[in-house]
């Protein structure tokens, strides 16, 4: 039986993890590879590395990091952040990334999705969508949620599916950072609307929040950062808890 996925997300800047992490057993708290390896051992199903560096060196630094991750990690990982061209993706996949996630660049130029799918296949193209509720509707936002657009979440989700995206990573800007749970109403609607997997992101605070996004939100996977980095939730315990609630997980 296909299981629901638990995905820790690591923010990367200049080749180092940025969000504070609270791992006593880490020799180097800024080393993405050490942290990734620990998550993999604890039962993470996949990892997402989100590059937030803004330097000119960023592409080269990220490519080198991706290669080192791929050498060590025996679970799939996605790389995102600032991807705007086919060449960006070529380098990341060639260095061993399993998937890439594309956000603003796809909204600005939707044909990019078709180009990426034609060249690399749907299976490695994740489209990240940041959205916020505006006047009873959900609108797509850009640049990490800072810039609003007039595009409806529902229209955009259908369009990225039609253009061949393999998965949608949906972040609710209203829920992100609140630790009050995922946007399950919107997620349930999204999961009805599209027939590609949807990863829920934004709002994880408790183990029940994960259960709820699988049961009520019908999400295929759930992504979180700080609850894992600060050990507020242990992946091993989380998966045990989900299993006891009858949710299929890999243990």
């Amino acid at each position, binding site marked *: 039986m296909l299981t629901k996925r638990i995905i820790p997300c690591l923010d990367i800047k200049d080749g180092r993890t940025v969000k504070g992490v609270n791992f006593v057993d880490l020799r180097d708290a800024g080393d993405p590879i050490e942290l990734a390896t620990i998550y993999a051992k604890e039962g993470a199903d996949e990892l997402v590395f989100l590059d937030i560096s803004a330097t000119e060196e960023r592409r080269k630094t990220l490519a080198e990091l991706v*290669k080192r991750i791929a050498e060590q990690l*025996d679970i*799939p990982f996605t790389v995102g952040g600032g991807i705007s061209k086919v060449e960006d993706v070529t380098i990341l996949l060639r260095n061993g990334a*399993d998937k890439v996630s594309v956000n603003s660049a796809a909204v600005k130029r939707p044909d990019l999705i078709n180009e990426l799918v034609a060249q690399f*296949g749907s299976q490695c193209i994740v489209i990240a969508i940041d959205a916020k509720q505006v006047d009873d509707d959900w609108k797509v936002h850009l640049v990490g949620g800072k810039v609003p657009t007039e595009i409806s979440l529902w229209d955009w989700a259908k369009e990225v599916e039609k253009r061949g995206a393999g998965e949608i990573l949906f972040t609710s800007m209203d829920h992100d950072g609140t630790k009050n749970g995922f946007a399950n109403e919107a997620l349930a609607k999204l999961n009805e609307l599209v027939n*590609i997997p949807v990863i829920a992101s934004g709002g994880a605070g408790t183990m029940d929040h994960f259960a709820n996004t699988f049961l009520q939100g019908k999400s295929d996977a759930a992504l979180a950062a700080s609850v894992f980095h600060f050990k507020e939730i242990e992946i091993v315990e989380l998966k045990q808890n989900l299993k006891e609630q009858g949710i299929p997980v890999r243990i």
Partner: protein
Amino acid sequence: MKTTIIDYGAGNIQSIQFALARLGNEARLSADPDEIRSSDKVIFPGVGEASSAMNKLRATGLDQLIPALNQPVLGICLGMQLMCQSSEEGNTKGLGIFNTDVLRFSDEGKVPQVGWNTIEGFSSDLFAGISENEFMYSVHSFYAPISEDTVAISQYGISYSVALQKNNFYGVQFHPEKSSTAGSKLLQNFLEL
């Protein structure tokens, strides 16, 4: 032992090389016929679209070379699918090794299937020491139905072949190189065949 991963420009094959390196095996990436023929083990990877992958194989003559190999050959993901008779993806004629066609999942479940699924019903040495209902990671929209060559199955709305074997030819739908310790065990088993 000489292991070659067939390099025909199909997707992320470095991950397989890295996974073998973690097992202490220094596999080479190559499309050279002599290099491939003289290997003890051959891995036939594949990620992407079936018809364009087959075109690449035909352009280099690998479509003739692969079915004629005598050493153990392991097809992974699209590699396994291309070893079948045909694929519904782009109406592609395959290498014709396994006696089955490849079909598209109906839209009952999400397509592609992405994630960790249980595998069961083993009847191949490839699965020695791997528990029934172990989890493996897959990403795919097309599948091989159950056939005489099926050596392991998974469920996704329907039962399908998650592994195939015929003589020296092996194929797995999942990505052992991305399937944690169980996947690593399978690669180890292949190297020890």
